[in-house]
């Protein structure tokens, strides 16, 4: 007669305790994935859980092959429809998660439980396809602890408190960490073995290639970090000097600024040799899916690692492919004043002063009047800035503008955000026959003193103007600073009225101080994570390996690896095994020898037997050892218990030499 326990043991079925742990582990693992996948997968998960529960209650059988086939076919069709037949990472992960969930309905024996655990580890890795932040990593570590715990539960038959189980799982994971670190550092960084299709849902962030009134105004309302900067020199530029140039817009259609890509300038700017005070900095940019990178004017040297990029003649940094992964790059810039610009060609000059005909007549007339009354371009610029200074307002919620948007802005509404100022100023300059262009990018940023980096958020988005002055070259003019100098000097949160400020970065600037501080700490943690872990690529690896070991040849790495393993074993021997050796007295070592000697007569000394008792027993089994045994018995008693210290040495040697006398 078998008890239920016996049957469970024999057929290696999943016990109820295991089942619960497996369900929990699966839930923990797929939770972050479910948020990225179609909603109906939640339903399938709930249904599978319910079905498995009914099986557990004995109210429902395990599904047969036909129903399993039907469910799977339906889900595949569902995934196919959901992603419109496009195959991509999400569809594949969706399929993985679906099969993972549906495996619950086959969860019967220990083998199935192990399979669930294995797929669980794959699912943990899969979540990094979507998010790579430090929080995702911490969550993955937690998932691994739960998985390992569930894994252990399959084999543990005793009842243990939950905390103890989790601690056990956590300890196992901790033990793996040294190995993980070594693997992280020395494993070759292979490129992807096959081309990974892009994720479908992720949208482009930041600017687009055009600029209309209100674009930047809505961009600064979004949260998120655009990029982070570390200055590599001791002196860093002032905040008001931090104009991060991203994109130059040089064509105006009366309302929208756009970019004319075929316009080529004659060569990149070069330093004039007068001064060589370069600004060197490292930027870690979030993927925004556009092909431009940000830099301070004027970049002369850049290092973007494995991503191919170039510096254009406009002084912009452009990548060949849209940026889909986080990128860390270094740039050296020189000040525009120390740059030699090649003179504009006639065609370029014409292009940079072109305006759509018939639009904004009042603006054109105003500029024309300034041009006639002035001697130089500088004078016109000053007049324009003075004009802005009179009674313009810097606001995030300007009134809507009509067909002649610049006229409306300059002469009636007089309220606008930076793109209004930049756009109208550029139009004014062009109307006054001064070549000008709009630059969009970011201005300023938040300095984090603890980790020494600047964090540039979407809220720092900005637009300004660059004008061409004969003999000098491109000169940056920021009309916004004429209206709201605080914007440039102290950042956007100090330049706006209270109700506008609530809208910037979704209200993050109005949050309580402690929340802001906490967010800044999180930001710093994420920055360090990105900088030191996520951007560790083949190039950084070879640099680090060269720095640490003087090269990256396979034999060298192999040797290092062996050395590491050797030192781990060595540490184990020194700290764990050696103390045990040392704790053994000469007497104990001699006893060990003696016990080994006695094994030839198949006599084993019991734990509770003294040497004397054992000798008597041995004598009974092996009468030829009579005298030796008796002598040893007498000696041991005298040495150990009769407190004759000099006998102890005799005893040690007698034990070692036994049965010789």
């Amino acid at each position, binding site marked *: 007669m078998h008890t239920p326990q016996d049957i469970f043991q024999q057929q290696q079925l999943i016990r109820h305790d295991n089942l619960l742990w497996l369900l929990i582990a699966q839930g923990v693992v797929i939770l972050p994935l479910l948020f990225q996948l179609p909603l109906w997968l939640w339903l399938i998960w709930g249904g599978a859980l319910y079905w498995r529960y009914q099986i557990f209650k004995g109210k429902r059988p395990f599904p047969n092959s036909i129903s399993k086939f039907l469910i799977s076919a339906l889900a595949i069709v569902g995934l196919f429809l959901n992603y419109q037949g496009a195959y991509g990472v999400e569809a594949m992960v969706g399929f993985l998660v679906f099969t993972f969930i549906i495996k619950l309905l086959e969860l019967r024996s220990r083998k199935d439980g192990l399979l669930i655990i294995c797929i669980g580890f794959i699912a943990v890795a899969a979540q990094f396809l979507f998010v790579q932040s430090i929080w995702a990593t911490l969550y993955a570590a937690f998932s691994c602890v739960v998985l390992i715990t569930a894994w252990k539960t399959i084999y543990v038959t005793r009842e243990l408190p939950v905390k103890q189980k989790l601690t056990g799982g956590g300890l196992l994971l901790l033990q793996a960490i040294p190995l993980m670190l070594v693997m992280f550092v020395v494993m070759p960084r292979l490129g992807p073995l096959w081309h990974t299709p892009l994720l479908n849902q992720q949208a482009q962030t930041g600017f687009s290639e055009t600029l209309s009134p209100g674009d930047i105004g809505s961009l600064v309302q979004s949260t998120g970090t655009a990029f982070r900067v570390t200055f590599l020199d001791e002196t860093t530029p002032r905040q008001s000097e931090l104009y991060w140039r991203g994109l130059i817009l040089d064509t105006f259609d009366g309302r929208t600024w756009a970019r004319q890509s075929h316009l080529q300038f004659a060569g990149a700017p070069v330093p004039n040799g007068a001064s060589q005070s370069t600004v060197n900095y490292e930027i870690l940019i979030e993927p925004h899916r556009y092909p431009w990178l940000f830099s301070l004017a004027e970049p002369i040297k850049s290092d973007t690692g494995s991503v191919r990029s170039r510096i254009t003649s406009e002084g912009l940094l452009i990548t060949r492919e849209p940026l889909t992964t986080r990128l860390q790059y270094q740039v050296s810039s020189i000040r525009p004043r120390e740059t030699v610009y090649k003179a504009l060609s006639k065609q370029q000059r014409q292009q940079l002063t072109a305006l759509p005909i018939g639009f904004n007549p009042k603006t054109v007339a105003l500029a024309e009047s300034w041009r006639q009354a002035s001697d130089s371009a500088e004078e016109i610029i000053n007049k324009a800035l003075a004009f802005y200074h009179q009674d313009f307002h810097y606001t995030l919620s300007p009134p809507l503008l009509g067909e002649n948007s610049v006229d409306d802005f300059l002469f009636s509404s007089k309220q606008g955000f930076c793109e209004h100022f930049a756009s109208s100023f550029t139009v004014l300059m062009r109307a006054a026959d001064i070549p000008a262009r709009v630059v969009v990018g970011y201005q300023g940023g938040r300095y984090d003193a603890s980790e020494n980096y600047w964090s540039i958020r979407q809220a720092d988005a900005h637009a300004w103007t660059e004008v061409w002055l004969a003999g000098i070259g491109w000169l940056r003019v920021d009309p916004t600073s004429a209206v709201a100098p605080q914007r440039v000097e102290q950042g956007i949160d100090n330049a706006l009225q209270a109700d506008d400020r609530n809208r910037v970065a979704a209200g993050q600037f109005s949050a309580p101080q402690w929340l802001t501080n906490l967010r800044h700490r999180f930001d710093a943690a994420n920055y360090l994570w990105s900088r030191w872990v996520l951007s560790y690529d083949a190039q950084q690896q070879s640099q680090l390996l060269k720095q640490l070991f003087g090269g990256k040849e396979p034999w060298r790495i192999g040797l290092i690896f062996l050395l590491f393993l050797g030192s781990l074993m060595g540490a184990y021997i020194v700290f764990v095994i050696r103390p045990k050796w040392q704790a053994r007295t000469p*007497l*104990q070592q001699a*006893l060990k020898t003696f016990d080994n000697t006695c094994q030839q007569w198949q006599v084993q000394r*019991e*734990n*509770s*037997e*003294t*040497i*004397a*008792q054992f000798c008597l027993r041995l004598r009974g089994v092996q009468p030829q050892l009579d005298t030796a045994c008796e002598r040893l018995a007498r000696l041991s*008693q005298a040495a*150990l*218990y*009769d*407190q004759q210290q000099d006998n102890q040495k005799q005893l040690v040697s007698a034990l070692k030499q036994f049965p010789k006398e």
Partner: protein
Amino acid sequence: MQPLLSELVTAVSHVLLGKDQQVKLAIACLIGRGHLLIEDLPGMGKTTLAHCLGKVLGLDYQRVQFTSDLLPADILGAAVFDKQQSTFNFHPGPIFTQLLLADEINRSTPKTQSALLEAMEEGQVSIEGETRQLPTPFFVIATQNPTSQSGTFMLPESQLDRFLMRLSLGYPDQQSERLLLQGIDPRSRINEMQPVLTHQQLQSLQQQVTLVRCSDPLLDYLQKLVTFTREDGRFTYGLSPRGALAWLSAAKAWALLADRDYVIPEDIQAVAPAVLGHRVRGDEVEQGHEHNNLIDYLLASVAVI
């Protein structure tokens, strides 16, 4: 064995047939200045052993039969009013003796059992605010029936701890029983017994026990054993320091019986069941001498060297 001691053992064994080991343990207990508890079923010779010991040791001897209505004053004594002199006179109870035989001690209530506590530990009694010294030496030999018997009160742990040893006699073997059946009544033999020891000889033996030496390896072994009882899961609670001291003095007495002036682990092991049986308790409720399983486990688990 010292001639004196072997004479003691022979004299008692002459009456209590076939129980040499128990007799030796009992004598070891007394020369180790300990009190003795003899536990067994009725009719196994408990009282005979106690009687014999009293006789051969040459001590003043009183016997109290414990019953359920026995009161402390019945043992300790009480002040009685003297009409003629109009004073209270103290009438000492049976406890004022050198050897007290407390027969069937667990038939009395815990209150009465507790009356013995101070006497056993400190050799004195406090009655009506006055502390009175008991004669020296002072021994208690108690007998009890197994607690499973009806009409018994279990001795409290504090009381049990004051007995150095607890012995169980067990049935005699075939040969001894035949001799018992053939021979004359043991009671009459007891009456004929002569003291073997003088007072001074007993004291000198007790003195010799304290002089028995213990080497470091031996104390290591004893400490390992004691620690094991405190740390292993099968023991509900470990051995107290008093228990450890008791164990050591019992082992010393045992060594003296073997005519040795130093203790060896075999002594420790030999007295272990008698000394530990009533002091340790396993996690399962084990009755009576099934404790020996636990003690065997203890001795088998701890390495001698």
